[in-house]
């Protein structure tokens, strides 16, 4: 039984292709997380601001993104963007765009939660001991907000990695697509190909996401205040 596994993973460039697929998966998720954090922080601050229009706009945006399956958004941007606005984006750009739209919404909500959960007396007592506004933000608010934020950001990263298989549907050669292609080629001769290949991919995802989520749990515990 074991030699059927060995024969698949040593044959041709199979193993190398799996790693290339993994590279694509990680690339999409890392770029999207980075962009989501960059765009999500200002959006979250706007969401918790006093401007009513901003709050309403982001609330609607967040609700729409929360309700639509990511796969539907991928379809929308991959197929309809070209036919309605005649904008032709490569699949990779569509994937990063959609994941960033989603990540920004999630990130904005995390930022809003972190900022609004800080008790009011933090601001009041900082002013009482005579801190200036920039000092107040740098020494009091931002450090506490980051503590509350970071576990959520790490969590978002694993969710992003677990959502990337959806790009399979717009034909990006990610980990899942590569696995499926390998099974298609070797499955005829090797009966257990699908078991081994999908089993391996299952554990690759686990091996990446589990340590990250452990780390997030650890931070949550250590930083509990």
């Amino acid at each position, binding site marked *: 039984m074991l030699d059927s596994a060995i024969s698949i993973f040593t044959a041709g460039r199979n193993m190398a292709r799996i790693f290339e697929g993994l590279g694509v998966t990680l690339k999409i998720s890392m770029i999207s997380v980075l962009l989501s954090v960059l765009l999500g922080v200002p959006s979250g601050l706007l969401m918790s601001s006093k401007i009513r229009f901003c709050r309403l706009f982001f609330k609607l945006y967040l*609700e729409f993104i*929360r*309700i*639509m*399956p*990511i*796969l*539907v958004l991928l*379809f*929308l941007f991959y*197929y*309809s963007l070209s*036919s*309605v606005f005649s904008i032709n984006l490569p699949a990779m750009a569509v994937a990063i765009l959609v994941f960033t739209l989603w990540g920004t919404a999630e990130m904005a909500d995390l930022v809003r939660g972190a900022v609004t959960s800080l008790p009011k007396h933090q601001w009041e007592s900082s002013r009482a001991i005579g801190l200036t506004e920039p000092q107040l933000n740098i020494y009091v608010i931002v450090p506490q907000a980051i503590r509350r934020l970071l576990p959520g950001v790490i969590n978002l990263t*694993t969710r992003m990695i*677990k*959502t*990337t*298989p*959806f790009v*399979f*549907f717009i034909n990006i050669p990610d980990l*899942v697509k590569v*696995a*499926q292609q390998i*099974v298609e080629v070797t499955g005829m001769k090797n*009966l*257990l*190909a*699908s*078991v081994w290949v*999908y*089993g391996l*991919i*299952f554990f690759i*995802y*686990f091996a990446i*996401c*589990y340590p990250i*989520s452990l780390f997030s749990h650890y931070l949550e515990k250590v930083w509990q205040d």
Partner: protein
Amino acid sequence: MDFQFIVRVSPMFVKGAWLTVSLAFWGLVLSLTIGLFCALVRYWRWPVISRLAGVYIELARNTPLMIQLFFLYYGLPRLGVLLEGRTCAIVGLAFLGGGYMAEAIRGGLTAVSRGQIEAGLSIGFKRFDLLRYVILPQALAVSLPAITATCIFLIKETSVFSIVALPDLMYVAKDLLKEGHSTESNLLLVLSYLVIILPVSLVFGYLERRVRFAGFGD
């Protein structure tokens, strides 16, 4: 906008939506059952089973549904377990959802204060009654937002079911791409998911406001 096309294909979307709803329903029911069981087993620290539940929860939560489905649909038959698409979809969703629900419910269970349990025991509640009348009502109320989020997440995850050859909403939309009306069919797709998920989101939002009695004993 081609309205004739929309009228013609609408029934297909209704059919697809119905399949999505029924699969999601059974997946959610099973997820909640598995999640509740695992959360309680972890809560009571039953030897061995608690450990197994812990491993299961981590496996379910740290792998994507698509791979779980691929494994169930294409892997298992080669090991002699043949599952049809529908079963695969429901089993896959329940496997994924069980882990998420267990975590959601566990959060509520740990929020029930020691004092509540001791008070319950001191007025003579047996273990099952304690669970039924003291622990669960408070725990579920606390974890309802997390359960809501998980339910909506799971319904959204049903969108991948076309990979196990089920004619759900995504499958219909993908199939119609050939006909070249991607705007109209994608519009119907978005509408269908809105019609399915928006009510769920609203009902749960209403429930959350209704059960804010938790934390009463604090």
